[in-house]
Structure formats: C-alpha cells, structure tokens
C-alpha cells in the first residue's frame, strides 16, 4: 500500500520535455515508488530526458493524428489502467492539455480532481495537496479520502526540477483506442505566433504592462525596456482581453506563472489573479499612479508615478549606458 506507483502526464515542445514536466517528475521521484511518464503524442524524442528525471517507463500514444489531447489522452490512460497498471497518483500540470485530459479521465474513473495545487505530500495511503486561494493569501490543504488513482493538477513552477541518476525510460506503446463520438474534434491548421528573445516563463527579467498604459501603442515601451534588460515582455489579462497583445504574454492565474529575478509591473493594479502568477519573483518593481494600488503591497521598489513619464526616461537612461 502507500503511494507506490505514480504517473506524470509529460509534454513536449520543439523536441524537448517542457519545464513543467520535469518539475512534476522531480517531485514524483521524491514521493517514492516507481514513476512513469505518459506522453500524449510521440514520446520517443524525449524518453531519455524523462528517464533521467525519474521515469522508469514512458507510455507513448504516438501521433494524435489531429485529435485534441483531452479525449485522446484520457482514453489512452484509461486503457492502460484497465490493462492492469493501476497508478496511485497521476500528476498533471495545470495547463490546457493537463486540464482537458484530467477532466475527462476523472469521469472515466469516477474520481475527484484536485486542481491548482502547489504542494503534495504522502499521508499514509492517501495524499495531501496544498492550494493557494485568494491570490495566495491563504493555503488550503486537502486530502483524498476515497480510493486511488488520485488525480491532481499542479501550477507550473511549484517545484524545482533536478535530474536524477537513472538512464533512459523504457518506451511502452499506449495507443489511443476508438474514441467514438468524443473524438469528433479535429485540428485542421496550426498557427504559431512568432516570438523573439527569451521565453516569458524562463526569462531572468520580465517587464509586464497593464491597462494603465492607456493604449496599445504604449506597449512598445514595455517591449523596448524588456529588450534593453534582455528580458521578456508580459501582460495583464486586461490588455490581452482588449486585444493589445497575444494571450501567450499573459501572466497570472489563467496565464503563465513567472519567477524571474526581476519583475517590472507597469500600469498593473495587482489583482489577485495577476499576483498568483508573479508573486514568486525575487524582486518586484512597480510603477503605478495610484499609491493605493495593491501591487505596491508586494513591490520591493514602488514608484508612484505616470508610466508615460517614468518609462521613457528609464528607457533613455538605459540606452545611454
């Protein structure tokens, strides 16, 4: 008994395992027992990395042939479980694919899902997970009370990834069974938005803009400052919803979680849903004209001022160096 068999839903981008995958594998390893990775797609390219981070076995569905991962991934996992490999815990990243797969799997297994977690610990034959609420002000710890497989989704950047000492994971085929009506949705075209510079969730410096910029053209100030600091531009949801910048730049509960060494918030109020995505930054600088803005509550350096005055001067000062 106990938690002996853990699966991690593993993802790939551009031929490499995603940071969230490595974080979860590292955590899974520390909980003890055997760890398997489950790739919804072709797992061969990343199997050696997954092994290095702790996956003794790498389940791979093979190419999804246009299917969305939700229905396909859940059905493939269910088939392996029915085949006799019964995990005690399956860990998912709290992102699009993770959410879609764990949701459908929860129905197939008739098991609850605990979402938005940032911590997990073994508790006898069960597990305790911790979830921040109210923008991270309080931490709620919940245990699973029924039988496994326990299903839990974790916010990215909750754990520090570190490789272990094992070799490549053994790749095991886990084909997607016939999906019937649930497999009706098909991807017909893929559009990738071009980005330059470091990735938002990996950059050492993030400069983020919000509604206080006033108009979409002013986002150029955010981009120039990010470039000067070799960082990545980010955004609040307000300006993503307004269509000023693409969703891929959104920081927060529904966007990316960032933990750079410096986070500069320009014209961002500091709503709880924004703060959960950036509160973990080592140093926070905020520029906001409202001295009462909640963002100042977490800022190491707060400038009460107009972004249209402070930012251009800051950019000029840095250009002159």
């Amino acid at each position, binding site marked *: 008994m106990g938690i002996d068999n853990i699966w991690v839903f593993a993802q790939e981008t551009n031929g490499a395992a995603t940071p969230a995958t490595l974080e979860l594998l590292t955590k899974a390893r520390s909980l003890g027992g055997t760890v398997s990775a489950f790739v919804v797609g072709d797992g061969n390219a990343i199997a050696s990395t997954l092994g290095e981070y702790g996956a003794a076995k790498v389940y791979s569905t093979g190419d999804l042939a246009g299917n969305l991962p939700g229905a396909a991934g859940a059905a493939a996992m269910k088939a392996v479980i029915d085949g006799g490999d019964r995990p005690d815990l399956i860990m998912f990243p709290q992102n699009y694919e993770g959410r879609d797969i764990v949701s459908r799997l929860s129905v197939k297994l008739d098991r609850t899902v605990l979402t938005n977690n940032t911590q997990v610990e073994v508790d006898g034959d069960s597990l305790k997970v911790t979830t921040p609420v109210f923008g991270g002000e309080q931490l709620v710890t919940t245990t699973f*009370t029924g039988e496994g497989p326990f299903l839990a989704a974790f916010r990215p950047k909750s754990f520090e990834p570190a490789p272990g000492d094992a070799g490549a994971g053994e790749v095991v085929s886990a084909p997607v069974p016939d999906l019937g009506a649930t497999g009706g949705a098909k991807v017909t075209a893929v559009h990738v938005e071009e980005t330059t510079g470091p990735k938002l969730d990996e950059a050492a410096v993030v400069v983020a803009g919000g509604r206080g910029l006033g108009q979409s053209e002013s986002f150029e100030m955010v981009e120039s400052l990010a470039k000067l600091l070799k960082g990545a531009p980010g955004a609040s949801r307000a300006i993503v919803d307004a269509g000023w910048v693409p*969703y891929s730049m959104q920081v927060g509960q529904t966007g990316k979680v960032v933990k750079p060494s*410096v986070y500069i918030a320009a014209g961002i109020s500091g709503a709880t849903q924004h703060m959960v995505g950036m509160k973990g930054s080592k140093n926070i600088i905020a520029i906001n004209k409202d001295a009462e803005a909640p963002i100042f509550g977490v800022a190491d350096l707060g400038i009460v001022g107009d972004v249209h005055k402070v930012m251009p001067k800051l950019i000029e000062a840095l250009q002159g160096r």
Partner: protein
Amino acid sequence: MNVIVCVKQIPDPAQPGELDPSTNTLKREGKLILDESDSYGVEMALQLVDKAGEGEVSLISMAPNGEVSGLRTALAMGAAKAVLVSDPDLAGSDALTTAKVLAAAAKKLGDADLIIAATESSDGYTGTVPEQMAEVLGMPSITFAKSVAVEGGTVKVARQTEAGYDEVECPTPALVSVTAGVVEPRYPSFKGIMAAKSKPVEEVTAADLGVTPVGWAGADQQIVDVAQAPAREAGEIIEDEGEAHLKIVEFLEGLKVI
C-alpha cells in the same frame, strides 16, 4: 439552432472572498451575480442563434438557495429560458458532481446543437467542469475557443494554444468552452430586463434529475487545514518627482541586472 449555455452564479468578486470556518469551503451566501466569464458564452450563443436565423438560447445553472439573479441577467440579455438546479444536498459538491448535475440538466432541456461554458469560473477556477460535462454526455468538445462559427452541422473554432492558435472543426452536437474577451457582452436593455421577469426558470433538485449528489466521487476529498501564506514584505515606495527612473536604474545596478 439551439444552444445551451452554462451560467454560474457567484458571489460578487468585488467583495473580498471568505472561507466558511465550519466547512472551509468558499462562502456562497447572499445575493449572487452572473459570473462575468459566462457573460461571454451567453453573448456568443445569442450571436450564433441570431446568425442561424432560428432556434433559441437556454441556460443551465447549479446554485444554492434557488438563486436566480445571475440567470435573470442572462435572460435579460436575450436567452429564452433556464433550468436551475438548486438542492441543499449539493452543498460542497466537487467539480465532477457539478458536471454530472449540469449534464443531466442539459439532457432535460433536450437536443441542443451546442453547449457553451467558460474556460473557467471566477470563483472556483478548477477549469474542469466543461470537459467533464462533455465526457459525461459522451460528446466531443473544443476547449479554449477564441472564435466560434457554426456552418451546416459543423462547429469551427479558433482554439487558443500556448504558442498561438489552432483551427479545429467538429460535428455538432458538441461542447465548446470560450475564453474571456471573445465577444463584447451586451448590456441588457430596459425592455430585456422587463421581459426577463416572465421568462420561464424551471427549478429542479438533483433527485429530480436522477443524479445522486453525494456519490462515490463526490465525497472523495476533505479539507484538513487552512493556513495564512507567508506574506511578502513591501519595500520602498517613492513618489515620482521626475527622477524616479534613476531609483530604478540604481535598484537594477544593485541586482547586477545592468
């Protein structure tokens, strides 16, 4: 074309949230309002039905104490009718139970071409309910829709991804979850508000729908602790009098970022 929209009624997010000390779940007392996340789905559905030139928009909601305020807002926007599942036995339900209840409510309304939900609710934000509903109903689904069009039995969606977006097609009936900002939700007109008062809202219990509320999965979790997170200390706050940018430069130098 008939569209069903999931409408969650939530405590006003402008008020600070609070946990009930006896159950450690979110307090959901008092007047509830239409979750802004769902106002996009309502608007999207109204536009799709409008474009099709026939059919109607129906609403489903699960909420405590027979709450209808949020539903009335959506009806005032133009939806035709609603099914409300309100049942004291449902208190503390997890997302899976919610999905089972909503799926049963959708079935009660009869055949719809499309079921629309939001990608996540403002108060619960598990983001799992729509996809769980689709699985309960054995339906295909497209999550994270930025735009939705229906043409002759096929729904076409631009689906947001981490890197950009995908074009996805699916035969109806299907479930689609829409992101915030996809459309501009209309304000209910005075006429709409008056009309909404007489639109039918059918109130049912979980038992009426044949769903056992505290099922196996329903009771599968228990909150064991609530703690205050370590607070981040606020630093230096200065008023800009024309030279504040130098303070930032100094701060960045101190960190060796520049």
